[in-house]
């Protein structure tokens, strides 16, 4: 063995405490001039001590499975689980032109409805206009989301009350108006803002 170099086998044996006293001495002499070798010895001992003292335990499978279910892809074609979120925030209807006609410009309230919903974070304005009937009673609903803070996209879906399938599902930038056409009826609007789901209940077009 060259005086100032040691081979890997000797070095690791030294780190593991497997050498005779004479061999140890020889390695220690060589280590004085070899910081890389000293680092390797330290890493071996760190690894060995870490594993020997490790009392960690694996989580049970059911715990892992629950954590896996936390994940909800945000893509439009991915799981619609946000639409079914049970922790959705129900928005308050803070303005309804049909019950507050004095707050609305003179408009034929039989043909136009204005609604405003709000939560602590967002406000949604809806304006529904009855279309000229062509045998079908239909409404054109224009809406806009207003959110405090950073601009972001909003995913929203419109459900007929009692149905699990959305009649409309779209994505809009905040402050960008949207327009949908719906037949007369009762609806619920669900919107996803970041990780939160907001519900606009009882959108009644009649």
């Amino acid at each position, binding site marked *: 063995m060259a005086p100032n170099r040691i081979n890997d086998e000797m070095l690791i044996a030294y780190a593991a*405490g497997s050498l005779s006293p004479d061999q140890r001495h020889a390695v220690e002499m060589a280590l004085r001039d070899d910081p890389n070798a000293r680092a390797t010895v330290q890493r071996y001992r*760190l*690894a060995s001590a870490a594993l020997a*003292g490790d009392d960690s335990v694996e989580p049970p499978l059911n715990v892992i499975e*629950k954590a896996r279910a*936390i*994940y909800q892809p945000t893509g439009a074609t991915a799981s619609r689980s946000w639409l079914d979120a049970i922790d959705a925030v129900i928005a308050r209807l803070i303005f309804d032109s049909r019950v507050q006609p004095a707050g609305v410009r003179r408009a034929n309230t039989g043909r136009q409805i204005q609604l405003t919903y709000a939560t602590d974070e967002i406000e949604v304005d809806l304006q529904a206009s009855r279309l000229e009937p062509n045998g079908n009673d239909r409404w054109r609903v224009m809406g806009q989301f207003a959110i405090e803070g950073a601009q972001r996209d909003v995913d929203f879906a419109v459900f007929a009350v009692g149905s699990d399938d959305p009649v409309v599902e779209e994505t809009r930038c905040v402050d960008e108006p949207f327009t949908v056409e719906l037949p007369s009826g009762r609806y619920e609007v669900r919107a996803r803002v970041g990780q939160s789901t907001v519900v606009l209940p009882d959108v009644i077009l009649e």
Partner: protein
Amino acid sequence: MPLTDTDPWQPTVGAFHGDSSRVRSGPWNSDSAFRKAERVIGKRVDQRDDAALVEACLADERQAWDELIERYGRLVYSIPMRYGFGDADADDVFQSVFVILYRKLDTLRDQQRLSSWLITTTHRECWRIGRKRNRELDLDHDFADVSTPSEHHSSTWERQHLVREGLKRLGGQCAELLTALFLEPNEQNYEQIAERLGMKVGSIGPTRARCFRKLERILVEMGIDDRTTSE
């Protein structure tokens, strides 16, 4: 130089309070060393670093989320268990931590290693949930700040996690051999180890060296040296 009580890298066995059955005790014989080796190594894991997995999660890749849980589940779950939490409370902490991780993915995309963040977050959730249950956590009272774990615990747990993950990435007979030798370094057990692995006793030394060099590269790549500067 054998590991001694004064060895600076010797872990403080018994530093974790709580149910003693959860704390390793007594020397390991080769049989139990191999059983532990099987538990340590598990399956080979994905080579993507944490930042890449976070990006993949944000890009709607469910598999990436599963891999984050696979990578860090043990680290996270073990903390409330060490603090003496029961199974149900440890489950609550576990779920809370991963919900927080999920919600904060966007802010963690530049984090090369999540272990430190997860240790701190888990510790805080233990305190939060523990207070809700009026539980007195048996923690080291040296804490200057109860909202963060002690540096000793944090660095120890992180190093254990890195070594375990490094061995998983190494895989194969190298991982089995090193694990057995780490757990039982005495030469008296070399014959049993060699027999179990189908090796010649005389080849253990050179194979250990070769395998450790591979592990060392992995551990350095994973950043183990970042945790040694304070030792």
